[in-house]
């Protein structure tokens, strides 16, 4: 009987030890994981539908959007303590193309396990990257060429391609518009940095891959801090005033809607 008692005690002890609370928040902050950032392009809170749907711009114009592409680069993830993980520069440049769903999801691997609360990135290509020559462009040169994101008459990238058709009260006939915004040689650097706060932290672990859902409100390209009326100028390629305005508007159009852990 004593043996049975001992066995019972032993079994209880073992079962107590065995049944610890193994839930996710106890996973150690070691190793690396993956995170995904989704760029969800919307228009004033509604889904952005290319080619078919008319949207209001600045209250007085109506636009139909045929093409929306922009370059996202230099992604960094920041923890509550201010620690930054910087994605290696050569791997940290992407073209988000509204017409290509896969391109809207950016996967970042080898991220140190941590709870991240902010994401920083750039819209466009910074001057440093140009000065790195061919080596610095890597495969991105080909990608950009294939997507029509390179100028020909200037060896530079289009940071944003925003094209479509518009009508205005005083211009009821449908007219094409095209905004190609990039840096103007070394004279005007239109690369802009963006910081978005995450409503809940993105928990990167060896076994958790958080998805950060970023929403871009495209209505702000024309109607943000600066207002652009297509009736005034519908072709913006190298405009000393309007191009920087587009760049600034773009840098402020992003928010994080939610995070899946």
């Amino acid at each position, binding site marked *: 009987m004593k043996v049975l008692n001992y066995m019972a005690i032993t079994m209880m002890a073992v079962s107590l030890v065995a049944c610890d609370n193994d839930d996710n928040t106890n996973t150690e902050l070691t190793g690396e994981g993956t995170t995904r950032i989704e760029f969800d392009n919307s228009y004033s809170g509604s889904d952005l539908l290319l080619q078919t749907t008319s949207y209001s711009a600045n209250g007085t114009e109506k636009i139909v959007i045929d093409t929306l592409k922009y370059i996202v680069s230099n992604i960094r993830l920041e923890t509550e303590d201010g620690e930054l993980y910087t994605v290696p520069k050569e791997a940290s440049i992407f073209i988000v193309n509204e017409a290509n769903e896969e391109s809207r999801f950016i996967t970042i691997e080898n991220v140190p396990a941590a709870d991240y609360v902010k994401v920083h990135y750039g819209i466009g290509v910074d001057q440093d990257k140009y000065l790195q020559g061919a*080596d610095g462009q890597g495969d991105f040169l080909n990608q950009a*060429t294939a997507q029509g994101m*390179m100028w*020909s008459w*200037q*060896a*530079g990238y289009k940071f944003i391609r925003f094209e479509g058709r518009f009508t205005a009260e005083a211009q009821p006939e449908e007219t094409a518009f095209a905004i190609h915004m990039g840096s103007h*040689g070394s004279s005007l650097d239109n690369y802009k940095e963006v910081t978005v706060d995450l409503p809940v932290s993105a928990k990167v672990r060896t076994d958790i891959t958080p998805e950060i859902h970023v929403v871009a409100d495209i209505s702000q390209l024309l109607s943000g801090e600066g207002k652009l009326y297509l009736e005034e100028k519908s072709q913006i390629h190298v*405009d000393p005033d309007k191009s920087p305005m587009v760049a600034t508007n773009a840098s402020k159009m992003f928010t994080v809607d939610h995070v899946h852990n």
Partner: protein
Amino acid sequence: MNIFKLLIGVSVLLVGCNNAADDYIGLPTPVNFEVPANFPEPNYDFSANPLTAEGIALGKVLFYDGQLSSTGVVSCGFCHEQAFSFTHHGHTISHGVNGEEGFRNTQPLHNLAFYKEFTWDGAALHLDLQPIIPITSEVEMNETIPSVLSKLQADPKYSYMFEAAFGSDSITSGRMLKALSQFMLQMVSANSRYDAYSREEGEQLTPEELAGAALFNDKCASCHMGELFTDQSYRNNGLPLNSNFPEEEGRMRVSGFPDDFYKFRVPSLRNVALSYPYMHDGRFGNLEAVLDFYADGMVDNGNVDPLLKREDGSLGINLSASEKTNIIHFLKTLTDYEFIQDERFSEF
């Protein structure tokens, strides 16, 4: 035991004499970039693209390969002719595929390692990236980078050359551009009579040439400065607008700033006697016409550089007939005959 040793020996020999020789690609041979004694430090970052004999050889083949154009005819060398200091002999503006015309005069290729920006209007910030412009321009080579790469991939000689230069036969845009840069970076022009005189190597200038040099320093060198003969700035030199090319805006096309209208990068005057016709649109056929313009032909096109305004408000540089003649004598001393005959840069 003897037979055993014999067998071992034979098998070692057999193993040794396999086809490894076919697979052997040596390391690329480094080439030193020599900075002429009278030149400034280079601007190009060689650490990102070190010169090698194999890289340069590949770049040369690419430079003279018409496959980089849509018709197979227009290579870089088509407009950049060595005998004319790599300009397009006698052409005001150049024509590309199928006779398509642009609106700019082909610039010489020399001393590119010392420049910060490229083209008449600064449309390229790095030498590696400049070829993208002529390759993709519809009126020049009319191609796309991916399409050019597939042609190179289909051409057997390139897989060997890329492997020799870069270690594998992967043909990428980055490698193609780096090879082109390596070839062009070699084009240093620093052995004119002027250089031999400037470096005190025993060259004498004639009295006319010396007079011209003094006049040049006084009246021209504030823009055409130093041993590169350019301060690399963008300036409007009071050219009358060319009604043939209403689309021409000068640097304003790149920067967007109205203040940059009809500003062009001050060109180097090295080999100027060979690189006629002159200005961004090749409008002046000879050096006499250029100096006549500076003395007497400038107009207020809305944005003329302050350095070109006289005290009385008129535009131009005071030059008498004999001063013009002497300046031209001096400019001819900038011709580097070694450079235009250097086989390292030649097509054949």
